[in-house]
């Protein structure tokens, strides 16, 4: 018992440590004062929403609510595996503690998972609305019985989590999964944001009713959540026997999962973890990547920096995370507004938002450039402690910038051009734009995009030295994002000011290339004969000057940068 108590105490301590280590107490309190009211508000909203529905729709909604929450409960610990060390039970195996105790402790500990506690009030309030069909004025006994059933869902979810965590232990502990979870978390956040926007802006109450009326819950019959929600619905009308038809399979599954979990725990206890990583396969993949043909256009040292930078950009999950989150706020809303220009109003009118079409290309390009600017203005951010090696070489510093610049402009230039190409196809085939219009927009904005990137990377050569920001912290990636955010108020203001300066500096290029475009059309297309060479010259001169300035700044601040990037994050 004392070991179990110790293990549960450890579980709480490690969970609390996510937010309470130095500098994170405030964020922990903020999280608490934000999430608790949010959870209560959600529960209240859920209750009101369910009360406003007819019994049939309410039953459907309950099935979907239970299913959604079940999925979130089961998947969230997998995504959070790297963040809470307690999920990795192998760390306990050196101690004289039995695998049964470890299993029990992890199972009991999982009942305090954040997502479980967050959604539980909503589940309770939504469930309690069922009793009102039969007992509008009260029905305390029915309410009690319903609430007794709710832990069945919690139990089956928690035992499923145990099995999944133990079954996938090796995968969850692998570097690749850690990288993938960082990206997945960003994808889920983006999807949640976009889903919310879609829900608020596009879907009316009638469409939700339409969705619930379609009896789609029949596709959920294999889900344990459905068995339990069905038992909930059956209890007030059909009594205990009706509820048992859902509860018995859920109980059987729970028992099976407990047995399976205990067996997996025993296997892991003796080092037999399923899906063991294959270092050979990992090495073969890395070898394949390394053997990709290198460029012979660039000088050897510049080419080496460029190739290294491209590998970092490809492999570093922080890059994808940032790009996904930036894209979800900036790029995707623009794309969504293009794909569905016809917006439904409350009065049923449909208005054509075709007037936004001329702004689609520039808007998207601006959004892309802004989303990518965090990388361009922080060229050393991905280096981490590896900067030691880079700066220990006698390579002229302007050539380091040269290699990095080529990698960044090359990669993101290609990405942006691809996005614009997709947009052109949409413009032509969805919005019915003419070929001339589409191609002209594509070429002008692809060129503008590349020129913008060259100017952006030039400014990056300077700002990366003046305002370095750590993106990567090897070995403690879960903390790295917070360390990025805790750079201090003054530095944050400077960073914002630098972005304003960048926008001002980019303006001439934008001005030169947008001037002949509709709806401005201040000058004719002939203007490109002047503006394109001027834009190229502007970008080229900026770049050449930036290499000199960057090199000179680096000469003075190299040791400071080294100390900054190699220091242990707080």
């Amino acid at each position, binding site marked *: 018992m004392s070991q179990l108590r110790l293990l549960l105490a450890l579980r709480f301590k490690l969970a609390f440590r996510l937010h309470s280590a130095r500098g994170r107490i405030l964020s922990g309190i903020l999280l608490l004062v934000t999430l608790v009211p949010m959870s209560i508000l959600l529960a209240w909203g859920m209750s009101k929403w369910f009360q406003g529905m007819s019994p049939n729709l309410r039953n459907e909604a309950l099935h979907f609510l239970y299913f959604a929450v079940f999925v979130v409960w089961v998947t969230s610990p997998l995504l959070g595996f790297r963040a809470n060390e307690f999920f990795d039970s192998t760390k306990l*195996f050196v*101690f004289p503690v039995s695998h049964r105790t470890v299993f029990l402790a992890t199972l009991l500990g999982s009942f305090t998972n954040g997502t479980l506690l967050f959604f539980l009030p909503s589940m309770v309030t939504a469930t309690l609305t069922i009793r009102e069909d039969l007992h509008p004025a009260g029905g305390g006994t029915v309410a009690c019985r319903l609430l007794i059933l709710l832990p069945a869902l919690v139990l089956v979810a928690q035992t499923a989590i145990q099995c999944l965590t133990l079954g996938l232990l090796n995968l969850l502990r692998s570097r690749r999964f850690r990288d993938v979870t960082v990206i997945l978390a960003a994808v889920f956040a983006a999807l949640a944001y976009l889903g919310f926007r879609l829900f608020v802006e596009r879907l009316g109450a009638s469409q939700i009713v339409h969705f619930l009326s379609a009896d789609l819950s029949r596709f959920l019959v294999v889900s344990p959540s459905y068995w339990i929600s069905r038992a909930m619905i059956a209890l007030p009308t059909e009594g205990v026997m009706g509820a048992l038809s859902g509860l018995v399979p859920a109980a059987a599954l729970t028992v099976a999962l407990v047995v399976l979990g205990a067996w997996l725990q025993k296997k892991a206890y*003796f080092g037999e973890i399923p899906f063991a990583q294959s270092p050979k396969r990992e090495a073969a993949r890395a070898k394949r990547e390394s053997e990709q043909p290198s460029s012979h256009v660039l000088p050897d040292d510049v080419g080496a920096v460029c190739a290294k930078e491209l590998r970092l950009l490809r492999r570093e999950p922080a890059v994808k995370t940032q790009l996904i989150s930036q894209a979800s706020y900036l790029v995707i809303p623009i794309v969504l507004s293009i794909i569905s220009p016809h917006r439904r109003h409350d009065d049923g009118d449909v208005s054509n938002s075709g007037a936004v079409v001329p702004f689609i290309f520039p808007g998207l390009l601006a959004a892309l450039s802004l989303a990518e600017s965090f990388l361009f203005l922080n060229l050393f951010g991905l280096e981490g402690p590896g900067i030691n090696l880079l700066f220990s070489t006698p390579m002229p510093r302007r050539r380091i910038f040269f290699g990095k610049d080529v990698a960044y402009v090359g990669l993101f230039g290609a990405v942006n051009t691809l996005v614009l190409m997709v947009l052109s196809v949409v413009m032509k085939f969805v919005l019915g734009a003419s070929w001339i219009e589409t191609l002209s927009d594509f070429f002008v904005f692809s060129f503008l995009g590349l020129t913008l990137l060259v100017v952006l990377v030039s400014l990056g050569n300077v700002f990366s030295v003046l305002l370095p920001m750590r993106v990567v912290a090897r070995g403690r990636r879960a903390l790295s994002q917070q360390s990025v955010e805790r750079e201090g108020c003054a530095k944050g203001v400077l960073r914002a000011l630098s972005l304003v300066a960048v926008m001002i500096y980019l303006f001439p290029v934008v001005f030169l290339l947008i001037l002949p475009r509709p709806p401005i059309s201040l000058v004719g297309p002939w203007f490109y004969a002047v503006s394109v060479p001027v834009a190229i010259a502007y970008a080229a001169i900026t770049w050449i000057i930036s290499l000199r300035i960057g090199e000179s700044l680096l000469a003075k601040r190299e040791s400071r940068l080294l100390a900054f990037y190699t220091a242990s994050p707080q």
Partner: protein
Amino acid sequence: MLDDDYAVITEGLTKTYGDKAAVSHLDLRVKKGEFFGFLGPNGAGKSTTIKMLCGLLLPTSGRMTVLGHDVVADPLAVKAMIGILPEDINTYERLTGWELLTFTGRMYGLSRAEAEQRTEQLLRLVELNEEDRHKLVVDYSLGMKKKTTLACALIHNPKVLFLDEPFNGIDAITGSALREALRRATERGVTIFFSSHVLEVVEKLCTRIAIIHKGTLQAEGTVAEIAAARGFAPGTGLEQLFVEIAGGQVDRGDLSWMS
């Protein structure tokens, strides 16, 4: 000698992964109070053997006992009596060094007061200063992590210590203090099963050694015994013995450019 005189016994110990044998039919006997060096090149099967002896890995076949307890049948009894310093440190990095040690002590059944008292003494032994011991382990250097984990292995006063590369990343001063502490422990009857690539340390500390290569035991005994058995001149050093037994010829490629 009776089996009771031995701290560690393995008989035909084998661990295979698919068709590859990481450890093959290993027969070892380590006497109580012995400072036993377990040597081998990278990938020889040292860490696999240590994991099996500590009950962290199930052998494919064979038998092993630690202080008379069958490791497979009674892993808890074995774990209660041994201390482990694994090669790959897999511990709670979001605890402070102090918390990790007291937690470890209590997991071995020490009272809170006793665990805290021993934590204090061990942290002093491994020279982890007041500021560092209240930092999160995740912020420790490799050496500090190693020191803390070594202290964890010692906190419950184990009868057998399994140390896999214990001095890797530890500075000379702390290393010297630790070596002295370990030597004193063997005088008190503690058995140390020690794996290291630093042959000078092994030669200085270990009373007997075993050399394993490609999962198979190549030699066992004192340095002098092994040298005699292999036909080396008396006084042959461990390094030469080790290279001859486990090293062989290594293809180093064309390094003429390194002039």
